[in-house]
């Protein structure tokens, strides 16, 4: 009896844990990232977004240049990564291919957050408009062991020229 109980515990440890751990991580990650996204949406509503405004553009503007008194370089970066559970599910999804929704959400969050922070930085430097807004994406992995992809995260860098008028 005790032996079979031990066997059951042993099997469930090796079967349940590898499945339950990513699922727990996925559920926790979903909840946590949902909260981050809610906070970002609330912030965007309260302070305004950089998008769809003629004061913030990804080109240069002669009109702005003429009115400018001074300019400064603004740059913000943010590192985001999916949770272990999401990566596990993405790996499964990768077998069939198709849209990876959880990764979509992570990258969307990162990009919107970095643009929001760029606007905040512009406000704190007293800039009323921004020109030549550039967004760059790069993969950073600080994991010390070579092929370990668990430490992989995505860095978003936003930089622009802030104009004071």
């Amino acid at each position, binding site marked *: 009896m005790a032996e079979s109980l031990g066997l059951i515990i042993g099997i469930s440890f090796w079967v349940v844990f590898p499945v339950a751990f990513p699922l727990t991580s996925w559920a926790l990650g979903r909840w946590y990232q949902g909260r981050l996204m809610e906070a970002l949406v609330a912030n965007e509503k309260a302070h305004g977004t950089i998008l769809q405004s003629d004061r913030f553009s990804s080109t240069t503007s002669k009109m702005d240049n003429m009115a400018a008194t001074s300019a400064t370089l603004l740059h913000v970066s943010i590192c985001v990564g999916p949770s272990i559970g999401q990566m596990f599910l993405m790996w499964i999804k990768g077998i069939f291919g198709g849209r990876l929704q959880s990764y979509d959400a*992570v990258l969307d969050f990162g990009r919107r957050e970095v643009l929001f922070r760029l606007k905040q930085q512009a406000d704190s430097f007293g800039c009323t408009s921004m020109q030549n807004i550039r967004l760059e994406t790069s993969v950073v992995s600080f994991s010390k*062991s070579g092929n370990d992809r668990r430490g992989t995260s995505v860095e978003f860098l936003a930089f622009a020229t802030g104009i004071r008028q």
Partner: protein
Amino acid sequence: MQPAPTIALHMSNVETIPGKTITASLGLVTGSTVRAKHIGKDIFAGLKNLVGGELKQYTELLNESRNEAIQRMMMQAHTMGANGVVNVRFATSNVAAGASELFCYGTAVVVE
């Protein structure tokens, strides 16, 4: 290494410095830094990976390093006798496992 003295130059990532006039162009200046996180913070970030989202440790590290790269670029421009850098660009590359290179470059100019 001695900490670089903080200097502030006019900088922009467009071809001019809005509100100022460029009188001379002095050529390309660059600044770069390679950084790795100490293993304790790495482990902490690994734990943070359980839920995903923003990895503040790495954000901090990259911001610090980028500021250092900019500082070095400004030092170079300063020693050339420039007081501004235009068309500043950034590049990030993963040079080795656990390390990242942050690079920035621009054109040193004299403005008034």
